């Protein structure tokens, strides 16, 4: 294993559209994918709102960037950790989130879910297991 590979965590704690952080975070993730690092995304607090289904932005004249999350698998970004407690607090369940899948090249290209719902304690473990934490 190349020792230069670092674990990057992109932390998303803000809702989409009200501010640009979610969109510009996604732009970093897409560019970052070209660097072949070990990438994970964390969605907690209002960040979980970024992943909900049925976003329609026609009425506000802003680009709907939520479909881009479904393309992350093509960039080998396949670990999207979503915090259960953050969903609960906001009256959401996993069913309210988009289906985001990737094809696992190590498992005969089987389709697997990219979203991994984790507890707050597990999220803390994910955060503590990183080399670089980028917050948005």
């Amino acid at each position, binding site marked *: 294993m190349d020792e230069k590979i670092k674990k990057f965590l992109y932390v998303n704690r803000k809702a989409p559209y009200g501010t640009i952080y979610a969109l510009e975070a996604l732009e970093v993730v897409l560019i970052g994918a070209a660097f072949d690092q070990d990438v994970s995304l964390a969605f907690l607090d209002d960040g979980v709102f970024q992943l909900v289904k049925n976003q329609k932005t026609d009425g506000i004249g802003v680009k709907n960037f939520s479909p881009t999350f479904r393309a992350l698998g093509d960039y080998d970004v396949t670990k999207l950790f979503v915090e259960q407690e953050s969903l609960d607090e906001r009256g959401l369940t996993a069913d309210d989130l988009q289906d985001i899948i990737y094809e696992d090249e190590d498992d005969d290209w089987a389709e697997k879910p990219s979203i991994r719902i984790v507890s707050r304690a597990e999220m803390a473990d994910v955060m503590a297991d990183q080399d670089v*934490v980028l*917050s948005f």
Partner: protein
Amino acid sequence: MSTLHTVNKSPFATGSLQSCLSHAKDGDAILMFEDGVYGATKGTTLADAVAAKGGSVTLYVLQGDADARGIAAARLIEGVTPVDYVGFVRLAADHDRTHAWL
């Protein structure tokens, strides 16, 4: 392996401090700076939660930001250590990673 968490928001404006408190692990450090310094003061609705975390996590406040906001040392929660920017740099160097709770 430990983390320096930084919180720069008033806990009365956003949930950043609370979220940080609930994800920080034993042996980590939390530095409250900018408007985050209000989270380090006594007598608030959050003071007990902050003080309780002080058992497992080391709490710091950026002296310059506290001074700017008229927060005297006596108003800081017990166990919160004031640091200057040199201390901030040292904290960042001494922990394995920094996590900014924006």
